[in-house]
Structure formats: C-alpha cells, structure tokens
C-alpha cells in the first residue's frame, strides 16, 4: 500500500498546483458568500435560503472539479509520457490507478472542507441577525448533507477514472456527465420502467417485483406486450439497476426543511448515512475494479 500512498501523495501535490482548481474554488466561495446579500431579498425562510445556496455551491463546484480533474487524470500521464517511467517501475497498474483515485479524492475533499468552512462560518455569522432557534441542528444537518455529497464525489471520481482509463478526456467528460445525469434521474427511470409494466392488464402488481419478474411478465404472450415494450423495459430497468442512484446521497432537503417538516416525513425522503455508505463503498469498489481491469489490459504503445 506504500506505493499506492506514494502515488496518491504525488497526485495530490500535482492537483493542488492546478490553477484552474483555484479559480473554481474562488468562484465557489464567492457564490457561497452571496448568501450575505441574497438573504435580504427574501421575506421569510432566511436561513433556508442561505443554506440552499451554500449547499448547492459546495455540491456543484465539487462535482465540476471532480469532472475536470478526474477525466484528465490518466490522460495527462499518457500525454506527458510519464506513464512509461511509472509502468517500468515495480508497481502494478492497479496500484497506480488506486493511488490516482485516492490522491484526487483527497484533493477534492480538501476543497470541500475549505468550501464547507466558509459556508459554516457564514451561516454562523449571519445567524446573529437571523436568530434561527434551530441553528445548531441546521449546522448538523448541513454537515450531513456535505458528508453525503462527499460520498457522491467518491462515486463520480471512480467513474471519471474508469472512463479516462480507456478514452480521451472529452469522451470521458461526456460519459461521466451522462452517468451523473442518469444517476440523478435514477428513480425517474425506475418509475418509467414500472410504468411500462403497469400499462398492461395485471401489470400493476408485477411492476414493483423487479427485473426478472417484469421480463417474464412482458414475455408472456397473454399480456400482448411487443418486443419494443420488452426492449424499453430492459433498457430502463437495466439503467436504473446498474447506474448509481445519486438521490441516495442527497440530504439537502433534510438540511433545509428539518425545522418545519415532521421528522418522519424527512426520514422517508432521506437515506441514512450508514445505508448510503453500505451502497456507495461496494459500488465504488466495483467501478474501480473495472477501471483497473481495463487499465491493466491497455496497451501504451
């Protein structure tokens, strides 16, 4: 693991020298600080508005950086030909890739910590004016939202690394973006799949039963489903199952509305941190394993 950490350290040092990152960070901080002004534009829900802007900025700018830095991670090494010196050394490719992943994640988390610190100081200072009675809880909930955002970043970076291990940065960026979109719409895609089944007589019950039951139902000639219905279902359900469900890492609603909405309702719309981790860790691991496999087969000639 020493080799992995050495590469991670190197990747981190390299990343923090990247000026684009600082420009984006400055933008992000400026955006977070707009809460100071924007709070005067609202007539109610001052705390909510400030938190919404801050949490959005931390999440979006974190994702932008993950995308920008992640897609060029392997390509830069190839472009500068430094990959040859690395692979000629006694270091496995999977170690190289894992080190890159950890280094980038460390960089991103450092940026998130900086943005979060600015955000928390801001809401702490503004609370002197707003006098939010639930301020302490607001801080805690915001921290939970930021933490789950970090888990989401880990998944996104894994995908960026996967795509950059076999394609050009533009293509990697596009594919990672598509994963983000598919992940954000994951539950909608699942509903679409359920709707296909529910559209047939007797499909209401089957719709919730999963992939195999759904396919068996559609293949039954009695239902009258065409091959196109089967393809649509296969595609939608497959996408919903395989692509990550980023809504599971979204605790922003909890952080914004915890003080006005019953906790039971919020529990319904927010997955617990442990559940999110139980899902994210093996998912990220499998994406990284796939990336390692593809990178291991890659010919650098």
């Amino acid at each position, binding site marked *: 693991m020493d080799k992995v950490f050495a590469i991670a350290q190197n990747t981190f040092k390299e990343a923090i020298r990247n000026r684009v990152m600082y420009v984006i960070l400055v933008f992000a901080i400026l955006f977070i600080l707009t809460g100071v002004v924007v709070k005067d534009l609202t007539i109610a829900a001052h705390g909510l508005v400030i938190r919404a802007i801050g949490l959005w900025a931390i999440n979006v700018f974190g994702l932008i950086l993950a995308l920008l830095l992640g897609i060029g991670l392997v390509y830069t090494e190839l472009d500068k030909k430094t990959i040859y010196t690395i692979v000629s050394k006694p270091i496995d490719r999977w170690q190289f890739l894992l080190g890159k992943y950890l280094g980038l994640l460390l960089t991103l988390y450092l940026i998130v910590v900086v943005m979060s610190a600015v955000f928390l100081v801001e809401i702490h200072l503004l609370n002197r004016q707003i006098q939010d009675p639930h301020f302490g809880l607001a801080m805690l909930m915001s921290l939970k939202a930021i933490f789950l955002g970090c888990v989401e970043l880990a998944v996104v970076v894994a995908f960026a690394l996967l795509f950059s291990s076999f394609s050009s940065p533009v293509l990697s960026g596009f594919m990672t973006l598509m994963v983000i979109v598919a992940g954000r719409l994951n539950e909608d895609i699942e509903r679409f799949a359920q709707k296909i089944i529910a559209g047939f007589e007797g499909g209401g019950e089957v719709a919730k039963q999963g992939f195999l039951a759904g396919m068996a139902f559609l293949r039954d000639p009695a239902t009258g489903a065409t091959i196109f219905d089967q393809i649509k279902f296969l595609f939608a359900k497959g996408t*919903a199952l395989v692509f990550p469900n980023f809504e599971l890492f979204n605790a922003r609603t909890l952080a914004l509305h915890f003080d006005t909405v*019953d906790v039971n309702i919020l529990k319904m719309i927010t997955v617990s941190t442990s559940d999110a981790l139980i899902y994210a860790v093996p998912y990220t691991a499998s994406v990284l394993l796939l990336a390692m496999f593809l990178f291991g087969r890659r010919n650098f000639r």
Partner: protein
Amino acid sequence: MICSSAIRRRGFLSRNFLVGLVLFILCAGFAIHRQALYLANMRPYRPYLTINLIPGTRSNQVIKAAALGYDDFLSVFLWLRSIQDFGGQFRDPFALESQANAFWSITALQPLFTEAYDFGGLVIGDEGGSLNIWGSRVRPVEEQEQGWQFVNSMEEARQRADAMNEQALALFEHGIESDPDHFRHAYNAVYTSVSGLHDPRRAVPYAEVATLRPDCPDWVAGTIPYLQGRSGEHRIAMALWFARLREAISARSDLQIGINMRKIAEDGVNAWNCQTLTAALSLWSGMHGRALPDSLDQLVTDGFLTFDPEDVLASIELWRAAHSTTDPPPDLQTLVVEGFFPADPENPPEPLAFFDYIRFLDDVRRLQETTSQFETIREADLNLEMYLTVQGRIPDCPLNAWYIHSGDAQMLERMQRIGPFSYMVDHRDSRVWDTNRLFEDTARDLVSLRRRLSNYHGSHDQWPETLDELFPEGESAPVERGTGLPFIYDPADGTVHCRTFPALNGEINETMMGPPRPVDEGG
C-alpha cells in the same frame, strides 16, 4: 485449444485477474442488490408524485427532471425571483396571474417548502383574487388605452378574481397533501374560500382537515360551526356549538362558556332567523314582482313566514303556566299537540328546530345552577332569551327585523337611521343591504343601460330584442340589485324600468347616483 491458450496468454487465468474478478462480482453484485432493494422500496414521498394535483403538470414535471436533483436550490431561486417580481409588479393583477405558475413550480420542485404556500396564497389569493385590484382595471372597450391591459366589465373582473382564488386553493391543497404537519395550509384554504370566493360551504372540509393537524390550535375547531352557519347548515352549526358549550361547562371554562353562548345567540339563532327571513323575502318578492313588502309583518300575513321564533318562547311560558311548572315541556311535539304552538306536527317549519336547543339550554342552565360553582356566570349569560328582550328594540321596527343581526350595534344604528325599508337579500352572501346604497347602484345600472340602448339604436336604427344583446357574447345584462329580478324592458320603444324603485323610472340625475366610490364596493 486455441481459445484456451489465448485466454492463458492474455492473463485471464492469472491469480490477480481471478481475485479481481471475484472481488468485482462480489462488489458489483452487492451494490446492484442494494440498488434493487432501494428501488423496490422506492421512497413514496418522492415530491413530484403529487404534482398531478395541480394544473399545468407537464411543465412542472419537466422542470423537476431538469433540476437534476437540485430541486431545493431551484425552488429557492424561483422563490427569490417571485418575491422580487411581486414587489416589482405590485398590484398589477395580470402580472399576478403569471405569478401563480411560479408558485406551482416552486412547490412542485419542493413540496415541503411551507413558506412558499403561505406567500403564494397571499400573492395569488389575497392580491390576485382581490376584486378591488381587478376592479381597478375595468374599462369599457372604447375607453381602453393602448399599452395597458384592462378587463371589459365588472363581471369579467369577478371571474378573473375567482379564477385566481381557485388557483390559490389548488396551491393550498397541494400544501395540505405535501405537508401534513401544519394546519396553516388548510386554514389558509378556509380563509380563501370564505373571503375570496365567498363560499363558506367549501371552507368546511378545509377547516375539518385543519383540526386534524398536530399543530392546530383549539380555536380553529370553533370556526367550523361558524362556517356551517354561514353555509346555511344552521342545524349542524347549532349542534356543534352546543357540543362546545357542553365541553366548556365540563371544563368549567368561564371564557369559553361566554364565547359559545354569544356564538349561539348571534351566529346561531340570529343567523338562522336571518336566513329564514331573507328566504321569505326573496320568495315574496319573486311572487309579487316587487322587491319588498310594505312591512315584514306582511310576510307573516301572506303566509311566507308561518312562524315567529318569539312565539315558541311565549308558548313555552304559556305551557309552563298551564302546567304550573318551571320545567320546560319535554319536547316540541307536546307543545304542538297540546295546542300551545300553531304548527303542523308532522312537518314543522325549519326554525322550530330552535326549540329543542332552547330546551336543552334550559337544562344546561339548571345544570349550572345545581352543579357549578362559577360565580361569574350570570343568569343572563346563559339565557338565550336575552335577544328577545324588549329593551333595545327599535320603535316601529317591523316584526322579526330585530332578529337580523341583533348583536351588531352598527347594524342597529343603521336600521334606526334608514327606517323599515332597510333589508334586502343579497343572494351571494346573504348580506343585509341598505336601501340608499341600493337605490344609487340601481340608478347607475339604469343610466348605463339606457346609454347602451341609445348607442344601439343609433347604430342599428332599431331596439334590441333583449337587453343581453347590448353586451358582448358571454356577458348578460345586469339585473335589479338585491332581488336579482331582470329590469322591465320593452323592445317596442326601448324603455327600461325597475320594479324596486319607481322613482328611477323617470329622469335620473347625478344626485340620485350618489357620490363616486371604489368599483368593488358596489358588489
């Protein structure tokens, strides 16, 4: 053989590869299994599922999808935008119409945004549904200036205001469904139904929903009988008030007993009497072709009011005297069968229902006398008959007139000021109108009608068959204020007359039309 050697050559049988493959299968399998579990138990509260409740659903679904999980941020952005827009377009009803869309989008994106329902209701309902604001934009077509938006008539203004109030109700219903913790969405719907749409019947279920919310204060339940009474469901209203009175007595709440007693007297008995009386007036005017009888006594004489509530109490006293007891009769039937009250035992008129309540209250009074230690409760406080006392009765006031708003001092003063010809039926909200105002408004309507007739004759060289031809399609000619009867129109010579005020059938001068007033006050 070739295949297996190729597999071996490419390293697919290497230890590292096999370990990686096993790990991948385990990790990916577990992740997909978890994913399938989440999807199978997909959160039912996914906000946009409720979008179907509100109009314009398709665009909201698109916005929801386009938000890509940043629903909260987008809803806050639209919220800020709406506030600025509302401030910038203040009291422009056409701009407020478009604001409705913004609040649907905000609450579709984030149904838990409780402040958006409150403020949206204010913008769409209170402001956008205000007849005052829409009325300020009424201009006849020929007077409309370029570059400004107007409505052509008061009727159109009313329709637009009502439509906005309907939209506010749709927003509140979305709030009721999405946020089951707060009573205020349901109570805002009550407010909009009553004050915006003048439809208390519609407000009742909202009030009932509000009482089911965990944060609902006690006073909200007290509005239900009031709304039932305003809806004409006086029997239900009285039952509810008496139930509350009973609770107040059980709880020995001096304040609540006083409040409920007053409600029973004013909003219960008086309102019921008022409705009975106005219904009789309406029927009478419909059958006689005149707005008002010479006096309210005539309603009784002509059989439109078969019963005077005062008689019930008088009958009770007679019955008590005849039976040498201070107890009330056991029930109404006894009173009727024994001939103390002139009514058909099988089919008593509606106000006779009072009797049972009065008797019940009598029992309550006795209960109070025997069990309660309240020193502050006075006999008069528990005596419904106080509204029938001679004291304060207006001299020469027609029979039963006293029952109209007897608890309303302002109304009493008005009654004294304008005399017996002071009661008209407003079909919309059963308000009592004053004759002077009615006279002036009718004069304005007549002047307007005659001007339109003259214009029509000038351009067509003939008189229209009906007054409705003077108005654009979809609109109808005004009717006589209060009674709702049409003006008398003769298509042979184009003359138009009113039944209520014969003085207006001649020349109408400025004095008759009264001073200028804000457009919506004319009703």
